[in-house]
């Protein structure tokens, strides 16, 4: 019996050692921070240095983890369910709405007020993604606006002006194709990436085809406006053949590569192409220009999908220290250092740094203009979990590809999309 008892004891001990124990939440004095790993490594380095210095000053130990746009929601989904969100989370445009609706974010109105003292007033169009019921649940960190990249040398060659409307893009693309300069110059990818769904929102909104009213209530995409928007962009794939079907399978980086390989004249993208071209002294740098994204019959209603915001999840044990750290990272000196090292990728959402001489370049002004004109996801209403799902579920780009790939009529594609959107809004009422 003694031998058996010993064996059992060993087995129990082994089991205890081998079964992984959940990581305890960070205690006071220790903070965890999750941030986006951007396409600009030098900027990431500045942010980490700023954050670590702030932590050092506050006497807390800071552990930084990163995620990319691709795995952000995989990481957050697991953390939401296991109640292990970090002390500080850098959330995307829809994150604050999703988490605040779950009651999992602390009120950070005091941090926003402090940041506003340092950085000037918050841009009104940034409010919609972070302010709910009169309280701020996240501090806008920066926006990565999508702009229209184009090739001025090619436009000169075919005698065309830089396009200002969605129609213009089609017309100029046709000219480029007819001139034999490029076979598929129109590089708008209606795919399952930000380069697909951000321009899709801008497109439909610019044709007056939003799906909610100002209160954020579902109204449905108006058919006439929606059909007009669909026709203008699907023509490039189906009739003019100025876009290749391959663009519909692109990843977030493939349009950058195609543009830098000189294969397309137009593509929507964040300023990261400029960073890549500048840092590698790319031969096309001198022939690369940017412009604010096109307008439509209802105006230039741009989407601001890539907005990163600091939030303090309620899972954390040190909300006071977390808020103080965000406040320190957003202090003017730290923020400007970060912004200036971002190759014009990270655009502030507070007034003062937007007036910084750093933006006083032709390209800089366009990037700032884009942010100032941008609307949050869910426009003309506020960002809501339902609006977030319309974007993350690729409803808009699916609508476009249904017409291009599956050859359904634009009218039928809009009916399908409205049915999907209505189901989402019925299922996800705002608390």
């Amino acid at each position, binding site marked *: 019996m003694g031998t058996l008892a010993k064996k059992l004891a060993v087995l129990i001990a082994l089991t205890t050692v081998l079964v992984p124990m959940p990581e305890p939440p960070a205690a006071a004095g220790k903070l965890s921070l999750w941030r986006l790993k951007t396409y600009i490594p030098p900027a990431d380095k500045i942010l980490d240095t700023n954050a670590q210095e702030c932590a050092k000053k506050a006497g807390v130990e800071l552990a930084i983890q990163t995620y990319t746009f691709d795995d952000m929601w995989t990481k957050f989904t697991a953390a939401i369910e296991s109640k292990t969100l970090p002390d500080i989370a850098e959330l995307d445009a829809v994150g604050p709405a999703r988490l605040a609706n779950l009651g999992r974010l602390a009120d950070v109105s005091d941090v926003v007020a402090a940041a506003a003292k340092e950085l000037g007033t918050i841009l009104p169009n940034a409010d919609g993604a972070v302010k709910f019921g009169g309280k701020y649940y996240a501090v806008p960190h920066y926006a990565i606006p999508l702009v229209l990249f184009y090739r001025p040398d090619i436009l000169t060659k075919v005698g065309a002006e830089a396009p200002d409307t969605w129609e213009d893009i089609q017309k100029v693309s046709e000219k480029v194709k007819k001139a034999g300069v490029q076979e598929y110059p129109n590089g708008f990818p209606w795919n399952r990436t930000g380069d697909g769904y951000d321009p899709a929102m801008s497109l439909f909104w610019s044709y007056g085809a939003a799906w909610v009213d100002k209160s954020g209530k579902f109204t449905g995409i108006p058919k006439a406006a929606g059909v007009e928007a669909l026709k203008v962009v699907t023509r490039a794939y189906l009739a003019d053949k100025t876009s290749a079907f391959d663009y519909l*399978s692109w990843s977030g980086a493939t349009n950058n590569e195609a543009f830098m390989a000189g294969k397309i004249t137009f593509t929507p993208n964040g300023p990261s192409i400029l960073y890549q071209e500048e840092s590698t002294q790319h031969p096309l740098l001198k022939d690369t220009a940017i412009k604010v994204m096109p307008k439509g019959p209802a105006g230039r209603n741009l989407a601001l999908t890539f907005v990163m915001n600091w939030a303090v999840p309620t899972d954390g044990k040190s909300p006071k220290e977390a808020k103080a750290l965000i406040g320190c990272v957003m202090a003017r000196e730290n923020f400007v250092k970060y912004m200036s090292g971002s190759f014009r990728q990270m655009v502030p959402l507070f007034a003062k740094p937007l007036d910084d001489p750093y933006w006083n370049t032709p390209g800089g002004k366009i990037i700032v203009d884009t942010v100032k004109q941008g609307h949050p996801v869910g426009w003309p209403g506020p960002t809501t979990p339902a609006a977030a*799902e319309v974007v993350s579920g690729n409803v808009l780009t699916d609508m476009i590809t249904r017409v291009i790939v599956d050859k359904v009529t634009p009218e039928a594609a809009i009916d399908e999309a409205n049915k999907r959107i209505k189901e989402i809004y019925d299922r996800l009422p705002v608390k």
Partner: protein
Amino acid sequence: MNVLTDRHRERLLGYALIAPVAMFLGALVAYPFLSAIYLSLTEKTVGYPAHFVGLRNYEALLESGRFRIVAWNSAAFTVGSIVVKLVIGMAMALALHNVVRGNQFIRGILLLPWVIPTVVIALTWKWLMDLFRGLINVALIDVGAVRSGVHWLGDPTLAMASVITANVWRGFPFFGVSFLAAMQTVPQELYDAAAVDGAGSWEKFWRITLPSIKGVVAVVTLLSTIVTLNDFNIVYIMTRGGPGAATHIFATYSYELGIMSQRWGLAMAASMASLPLVALLIVAVVRYLHREEE
């Protein structure tokens, strides 16, 4: 007083020894599996409590035109991949079975696709098939076979064929090596006797090799079917399910529903949709193997 007999002690020790394994299996296999089945029967959005809704998620999927496209794509992707892997794997095994010199080296080389990480394979094929800069299109244009690039990842039919090709390239060595190992256990005497009776190569293969290795063929096909049906990386990296939904399969669709849209209940139901088919396949293969043994 010792109340336990030696037999009891032995039995107790046996239970104690298998207890950790049973616990691990319960925790790592049974619990997630049962939990997934339960979640598929609930309306569960990430962060919110789950509400039991019975088979409503399955009904919603059956009514969804998009899910029908996904189911069809998954079937095409799996069947297409398995059939081609089976043929190439068999050809590889037959070729290597008769190679005397350099057999180990060639076998090692042919195993490479199987040991390379799937992400690398998917990225490599994505680049090879790129419309503008892909090696395949550049080569085809250079030799004058085509005037402009083929839309490997853009044309809906070709896109499916392309992801199948990448999957086949990764998976055929598993078939080949498994078949080769099985072929090497077939007694040479059978072939010698067949040769004396005047059997040709085809007859030897059809009447000796294939019947001798059919158990291995069945198991390998079953395992690969399960893995292929649940494949995610190749499609996600190469096409993201596009163009449109032309290559959207169960795994990418479940990811879109569960992670991006946060609809766990529906995502689990989409993942579970292929389970009855896989279960039937497993039962059929196991029964077949039992019958063969008897």
